[in-house]
């Protein structure tokens, strides 16, 4: 018997993500877009859980849904979106964008149909219990330097954001 739960949840979450994604790029109101994006992100966190990456799922919820999206909503409230809603929503060159995206999509399809064979049919299941510990070991061991650089990047970003957003420094 093939397990039903995995495909069911996969398709449910995938559908949520895709609908959310479509709403993000089509909604007139930026707040609605942001809400759709939040739904997408939460669904994606669940997909991470299905992929045995609980730590990344937690980080996704805290950082993306709880942090970045609040920042987005905050900024949307600060800027006047009423006028932006009344204006034209799409570029005049929107068809160029669609063609480019279609071409990219064609490329993806080509790659995936050609390279389908390299993906293994069955994936060995791994122990979930040690995930966080193993991530920590890697993050503070092998990737120590990258981790420090990431913190530097965040510092630069904080300073940059403050410099940009402040009226008078």
């Amino acid at each position, binding site marked *: 018997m*093939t397990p039903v739960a995995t*495909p069911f949840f*996969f398709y449910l979450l995938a559908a949520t993500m*895709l609908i959310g*994604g*479509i709403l*993000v*790029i089509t*909604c007139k109101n*930026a707040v609605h*877009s*942001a809400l759709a*994006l939040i739904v*997408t*992100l939460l669904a*994606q966190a669940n*997909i991470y859980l299905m*992929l*045995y*990456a609980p730590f*990344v799922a937690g980080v*996704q919820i805290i*950082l*993306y849904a709880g942090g*970045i999206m609040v*920042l*987005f909503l905050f*900024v949307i409230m*600060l*800027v*006047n*979106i009423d*006028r*932006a809603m009344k*204006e034209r929503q799409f*570029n005049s060159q*929107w068809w160029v*964008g*669609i063609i*480019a*995206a279609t071409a*990219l999509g064609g490329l*993806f399809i080509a790659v*995936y149909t050609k390279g389908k064979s390299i*993906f*293994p049919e069955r*994936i*060995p299941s*791994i122990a979930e219990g040690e995930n966080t510990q193993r*991530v920590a070991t*890697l993050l503070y061991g092998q*990737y120590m330097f990258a981790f420090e650089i*990431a913190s530097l990047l*965040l510092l630069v970003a904080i300073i*940059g*954001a403050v*410099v*940009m*957003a402040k*009226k008078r420094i």
Partner: protein
Amino acid sequence: MDALLHITTLHYLVLGAALFLLGVIGVLTRRNVVIVLMSIELILNAVNLNLIAFSRMWGGLHGQIFAIFVITDAAAEAAVGLGILIAFFRNKETVNIDEVNLLKW
């Protein structure tokens, strides 16, 4: 039917590709800067999904580490992007990306 019901890495990759395309379409066609920034977040998330799917496929955790770094970058990008947006909005009173046509104001 079996190919649909048996979830493999490819399924995740296709989902990631679809999200990526949605993000690309959003970036290329929308005029509202906020929504363009959100579309970039979609693209980054699609990348994350791929990274984690591959990490699951190979059984290693390097993909997850990369995903964490990508999320960090996304946070930095959102902060700076929205900071620029606020500065831009204060000067031009608009959030249309078409109007971002000066290097200095």
